[in-house]
């Protein structure tokens, strides 16, 4: 798992991850590259991350993946990410095609629901919490 200030260099990350595990005898490598769309007049999205909980979340996923003979990788941007650049890349290496396709889906959806990352629209220099697109994490409401 790696965090970068500002947009991700998708080419560099793809090439490095492939180099790391091209010789590890996996049969399928599936990266998911998230790109900031231009919509609603935004200039960028911006992200806060709580790294200690994210790291634990990721380590649990890595354990799940290894239990299925696979591995996962993840990179995310911190701070502002302009439209048409990349904020998020996750990936799966697996011996089998089916495991790889199922795992990338579960990993990306699990990430959306429970990775401790907060998103803001950047418009006219202002940073506005993307509340309507955000999801309460598992266990939300405990203290209410």
């Amino acid at each position: 798992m790696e965090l970068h200030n500002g947009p991700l260099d998708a080419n560099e990350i793809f090439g490095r991850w492939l180099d790391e595990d091209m010789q590890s005898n996996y049969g399928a490598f599936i990266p998911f590259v998230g790109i900031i769309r231009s919509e609603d007049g935004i200039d960028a999205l911006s992200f806060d991350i709580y790294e200690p909980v994210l790291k634990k979340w990721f380590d649990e996923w890595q354990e799940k993946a290894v239990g299925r003979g696979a591995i996962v990788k993840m990179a995310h941007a911190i701070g502002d990410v302009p439209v048409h650049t990349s904020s998020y890349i996750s990936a799966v290496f697996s011996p089998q095609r089916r495991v790889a396709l199922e795992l990338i889906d579960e990993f990306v959806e699990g990430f959306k629901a429970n990775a401790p990352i907060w998103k803001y629209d950047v418009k006219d220099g202002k940073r506005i919490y993307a509340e309507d697109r955000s999801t309460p994490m598992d266990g939300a409401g405990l203290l209410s």
Partner: protein
Amino acid sequence: MIRVEFLGPIGKAPIEMEASTLADVSAKLKEDTSLATWLDKCAVALNDTMVNDLATVLKDGDKVSILPPVCGG
């Protein structure tokens, strides 16, 4: 004393309090009107591990984190 941190968009400075369980923390935070719209949507971590039980016992120096709704990616 334990420390309570408010993450991401909550935008509230950390506070310290006496509390022996998470139920105590809940009771104290409910008195804070600035958190009224947040508590029912927020999850909780104790020393960076997610927790789900109000009876969780706290000890001196513990860190309780309040995590609002997320949207990574």
